[in-house]
């Protein structure tokens, strides 16, 4: 715990398993949404998240990237119980959600910040009341909750004397997003999920908020799950990177290593789609053709095979196995599985 911490409440949920036990373990996590296009049309299923396994270690920042519809936001919403789990398990610090841990208690340990800073604040509460709301509902006396709120306002860079009584519409986008971060921290969570939390901000304000997140992580011993489509931002903040495509994880690995060398062709394409920042070396060939396919009826075998420049016959038929390439680096691609039958597979 940091010395500068003056808050009167301790982390909502104390550490159970020690530093080696992951804070979050997801096993075969699945989320399907039923859809029906017309009254008599057959029932279909959107496979938003389709059986994924991952862990978030204590104190790390896990970056999650992928195109829209890949399931990154649904994964985040599953972790905090905003959408019902279709199958699989969520284990928080050794305790299984639903069996050992109630949703109410989980939400004291896991909080979330959303992209739209305005829609996620109650317009009829002052920002001080907004931040104090969570602690109050969880039994902290009114005066103490307001003291927590004022202390947090100070921490997030909004002077309580000037800002405490303001309403969301009186703040700028960057200030509102600071309030959302403050409100999430009022519950003293251990995991903060940031779902495109800086994407709607202007670049100069985005840098301020990223610096703030870096400070808060240290001061509050936080673990972050950071979802973003901006690979520069993800590289700056993440320890590990998780790449998703159509509801599946295609690659997980150390952020810096992945930035330099990507194993999965999809990860490589994502990095290749970053603007070059050099007017003399502009991108000449688009990294991928077409849009991501519909998750209602995902392609067979490897879901990426319809857009993959290195696809072979086996990719359309068999789901690729997860291969470990190095410490903490896993990839689900036939190219890296010597027994897959892909003609270009590494041996």
């Amino acid at each position, binding site marked *: 715990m940091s010395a500068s911490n003056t808050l009167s409440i301790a982390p909502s949920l104390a550490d159970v398993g020690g530093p080696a036990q992951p804070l979050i373990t997801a096993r075969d996590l699945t989320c399907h949404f039923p859809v029906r296009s017309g009254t008599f049309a057959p029932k279909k299923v959107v496979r938003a998240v389709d059986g994924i396994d991952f862990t978030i270690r204590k104190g790390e920042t896990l970056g999650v990237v992928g*195109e829209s519809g890949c399931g990154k936001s649904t994964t985040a919403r599953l972790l905090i119980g905003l959408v019902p789990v279709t199958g699989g398990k969520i284990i928080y610090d050794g305790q299984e959600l639903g069996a050992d841990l109630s949703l109410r208690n989980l939400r004291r340990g896991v909080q979330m910040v959303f992209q739209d800073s305005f829609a996620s604040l109650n317009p009829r509460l002052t920002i001080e009341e907004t931040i104090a709301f969570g602690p109050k509902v969880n039994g902290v006396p009114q005066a103490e909750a307001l003291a927590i709120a004022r202390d947090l306002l100070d921490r997030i860079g909004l002077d309580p004397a000037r800002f405490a009584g303001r309403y969301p519409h009186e703040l700028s986008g960057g200030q509102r997003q600071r309030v959302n971060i403050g409100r999430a921290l009022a519950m003293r969570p251990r995991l903060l999920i940031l779902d495109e939390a800086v994407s709607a901000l*202007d670049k100069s304000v985005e840098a*301020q908020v*990223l*610096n703030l997140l870096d400070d808060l992580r240290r001061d509050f011993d936080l673990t972050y799950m950071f979802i973003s489509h901006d690979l520069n931002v993800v*590289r700056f903040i993440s320890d590990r990177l998780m790449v998703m495509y159509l509801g599946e994880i295609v690659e997980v690995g150390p952020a810096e290593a992945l930035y330099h060398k990507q194993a999965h062709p999809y990860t490589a394409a994502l990095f290749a789609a970053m603007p*070059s920042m050099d*007017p003399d070396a502009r991108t000449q060939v688009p990294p991928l053709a077409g*849009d991501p396919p519909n998750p209602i009826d995902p392609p067979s075998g490897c879901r990426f095979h319809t857009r993959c420049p290195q696809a072979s016959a086996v990719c359309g038929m068999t789901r690729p196995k997860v291969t470990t390439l190095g410490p903490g680096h896993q990839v689900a691609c036939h190219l890296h599985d010597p027994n897959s039958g892909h003609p270009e597979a590494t041996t």
Partner: protein
Amino acid sequence: MTALVEIEDLTVRFSGERTVHAINGVSLSVAKGEVLALLGESGSGKSVTLKSIMQLLPGRRTQIGGRIRFDGRDVLALKGRALADFRGRDVAMIFQDPSLALDPVYSIGTQIAETVIRHEGVSRVAARSRALDMLKRVRIPSAERRLDNYPHEMSGGMRQRAMIALALACGPRLLLADEPTTALDATVQMQVLLLLRELQQEMDMSVIFVTHDIGVAVEIADRVAVMYAGTIVETGTISQIIKDPRHPYTKGLLAANLHGAVKGSRLDAIPGAPPTLEEPPTSCPFAPRCPSALPVCREARPPLVNRGPGRAVACVLEQEPAI
């Protein structure tokens, strides 16, 4: 090179519950076949500049000053039929959100054909074959079938291509692009940027491309004008802006872009937020956030000083002769 568009001392003020001085003296010129990027944050006036050229701003609440010339003609004086002729034939515009810009109750083919018939007076059949041709040029797969699709039946990237096809159907000499790739996924964004670049060269069009993303500007622009608080603070070629930014705001934007920022390092964030523009700026609008502000910055607005052909900076630090 001759200028196709010349904007001189443009000012735009919105009145209503609150007065906003959105544009405060912008002068720009775009040469034939040139791609100019307007780079800036939200509220810097980049979209308002584009909409003034098209006269898309609400008439009763907007006071426009200054001059806009397109190929020698005074754009702001166009009215009625002349304005309708101008829009779509000489100048076309594409927007950030194609699902809002396209009409949901007409098929893509019908919408493109309608534009062609209005401006060129050709037959329905000829217009439809032009529509098909345009869909092929923007590389929409199985274009014949897509002609009869409605906007909601297409994916985001495809809709954006369809909107580009619609805008370019009458071969405009100037394309106004208002953040057309911002809402797209990174992989699709790059496809659309490459397509725009190719079509621009093929048709020898001028383009004004509004973006907040300096990386996108690098991919598409010949020249960049950096906007802040309704003014232009710096112009130059894309290489000059990237490699030798002169204005402190441009420098700050480049640092905040995070390109190559390594974990654990501290970002050089620009402190504070842009001004609200209820009053027109009388001093340097960036001075309150500027790390190298001098007392003189708060006294008068620094003029845009030429620093070579096509290069200009509005900063007192640049007014002394370079050593």
